């Protein structure tokens, strides 16, 4: 199995998503509140996984722009749920050594007194191994 294929399989496994179910209606992209911030758009995630171009996916800005608001998951008519693919790709990055998106130093700078704990907890959960 090529490395690309393996990564693609990994993404499918982590997410539990079958990208082949997608009918390319774009409802995910139509629903996404972060659409304009993303370089790879939600509806394109499926193609990247099918084409096994996971490198592009994991280097995409979109991973960090996704709000995990589940709008795409809720509305997907094909039960594909691109949000899960994005999350899986993010997992792939942070599970790698050195893949942390957020360092404790950086964190310290971002802090403001009003920040609720859950934001910090979740940021660590989402961005770090």
């Amino acid at each position, binding site marked *: 199995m090529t490395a690309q294929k393996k990564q693609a399989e990994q993404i499918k496994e982590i997410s539990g998503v079958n990208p082949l179910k997608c009918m390319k209606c*774009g409802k995910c992209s*139509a629903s996404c509140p972060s659409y304009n911030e993303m370089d790879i*758009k939600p*509806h394109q995630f499926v193609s990247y996984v099918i084409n096994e171009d996971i490198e592009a996916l994991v280097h995409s800005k979109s991973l960090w722009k996704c709000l995990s608001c589940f709008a795409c998951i809720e509305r997907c008519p094909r039960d594909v749920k691109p949000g899960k693919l994005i999350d899986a790709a993010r997992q792939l990055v942070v599970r790698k050594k050195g893949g942390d998106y957020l360092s404790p130093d950086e964190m310290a700078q971002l802090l403001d007194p009003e920040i609720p704990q859950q934001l910090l907890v979740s940021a660590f959960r989402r961005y770090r191994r």
Partner: protein
Amino acid sequence: MQRVGVFVCHCGSNIAATVDVKKVAEMALMEPGVVHAEDYQYMCSEAGQARIQEAIREKQLTGIVVCSCSPRMHETTFRTAAQRAGLNPYMVEIANIREHCSWIHKDMEEATKKAVLLMRAAVAKVNLNTPLRPGESRVTKRALVIGGGIAGIQTALDIADAGYEVDIVEKTPSIGGRMSQLDKTFPTLDCSACILTPKMVEANAHERITIYTYSEVEKVTGFVGDFTVDIRKKARSVDMNKCTGCGVCQEKCPSKKTPSEFNRGLSTRSAIYTPFAQAIPNVPVIDREHCIKFQTGKCGVCAKVCQAGAIDYEQKDEIITQKYGAIVVATGFDMIRLDDYDEYAYSQSKDVVTSLELERIMNAAGPTKGHLERLSDGKAPKEIVFIQCVGSRCADNRGKSYCSKICCMYTAKHAMLIRDKYPDVNVTVFYIDVRTPGKNFDEFYRRAVEEYGVNYIKGQVGKVIPQPDGRLLVQGVDLIDNRQILKEADMVVLAAAIEPDPDVRKIATMLTASIDTNNFLTEAHAKLRPVESPTAGIFLSGVCQGPKDIPETVSQAGAAAVKAIGLLAKDKLLTNPCTAHSDELLCNGCSQCANVCPYGAISYEDRQVNDHGIREVRRIAVVNDALCQGCGACTVTCPSGAMDLQGFSNRQILAEVDALCR
């Protein structure tokens, strides 16, 4: 003991090249009961058949085995040949030594050995064959059509024109169905009423058509050629014979707040009403639930104003029992409810409407008298957005898995009509795919784009966001330009999925007609028998079988009519003699077999039996030959072996097993 003849076919070299046909014939003579065996170049040829017939006559054969191609190919040929020579056609068995032997094996010895085994199995079976005679059942020369939409009307007209009596049962107060609610029809833009009304009138006037409106099928018994149906004619509270259709009662009725079904709830109607002006029959009904007289006992205005004295508050439901030879289901469709699609704000904004509601808005007899206006404030819209595939092609549990088929075309129609009549209104269509397979269909869609400037955007809408100023912000995506779109609109039209009328499930159960998970009736064969139900004598017309547009519905209605006529034209029906039979001495009457019978062919009766001197009344399974199709499900369910299948009896199959394992 039978006198069996075995005929081994060379099929040119198809069989003979791999199977030693002479050897097979030679071996056949050693089988019990075999008194004649021969081989020939082409058994199915005239000459081959003549040889078989000659042998039957000369050797007084009581059964024959033809070792040849698949029975699916020539069983009928050989049965007919045998019958002409005076042999019961069910005394013929085929050993398939071509498809199942010579064509798949290369080694002559091996293939010959197998051919001999197959021959032996067939001989063993034919030794146990008994002459079977198809039963006969009579045909009532009258058809029932359930549903009075365009499908039902067309089917009824076609059957009636062929000279048979037809009854239409329609549950609403008028025939006409969904088509009567449409404004214009694609791809020709005819006025729907203009082409439908004449058909309704014709059906009403036809001497061989009886229309029962405001009526429902309540009970169905019997079988192909001989159904007995109870029809409940709901109390109309108006005497059909006296009413002149003047309409004064509807005008004067003080209860006017009931949502109009015909206008999809966009306007109201009186409690005594005809659904629309061209209704047939043009006799109103009193909706007792909303009638002041029925609810409070006080009122009676309609009776007072009716000069014909047609109002009859005492009228009761009436049950009509009628016999039919054939039943056509034409129960049609409705749009799905959009409760689960709140992201499109259907329940939050009056200006988000379904396509069928738009039909009513566009229609001169509709709630806005045909003016295109927003239902919230009556203002003329400047921007209209259409959203396709709302609830169609869904793999989630909110919608339907299928394509509703008609939406692409009617949306193009709507877009075109709006642009034509109101050139200052911009029309945008969000679509996933535009599906236009049909004569002049793609051209029609292209006209919408090219001549009428309708803006088609490939991409779905995620959310419709009502704005404080009453406009609607449509958040969608353009997949080709790869950008998210925020579009302000004054109206949004949803192409909601269509689904079979929910009542069809009830009707299918009564008819024992099979139905799929989406409530569409199943056809007997998807390709070759598309207008017949697997249940004999039941035919399918229109959307009850699957989504289709008007031209398709009308063609299918005609096809269903022809199938029904084909049935009604017969005086008697020959029934398949390979049916199940219950041995009254073995039957326990335990009712297990009826549980698995897909045709409702098994019933039970208390019968006096004489079981070796014991005389007693026993509950015995009885198979109706006309209904039984011979699947054999009952035979395996029966623990005592009382139920057996003619032509494929337990002993016959066991004989084959024995011969093959010898």
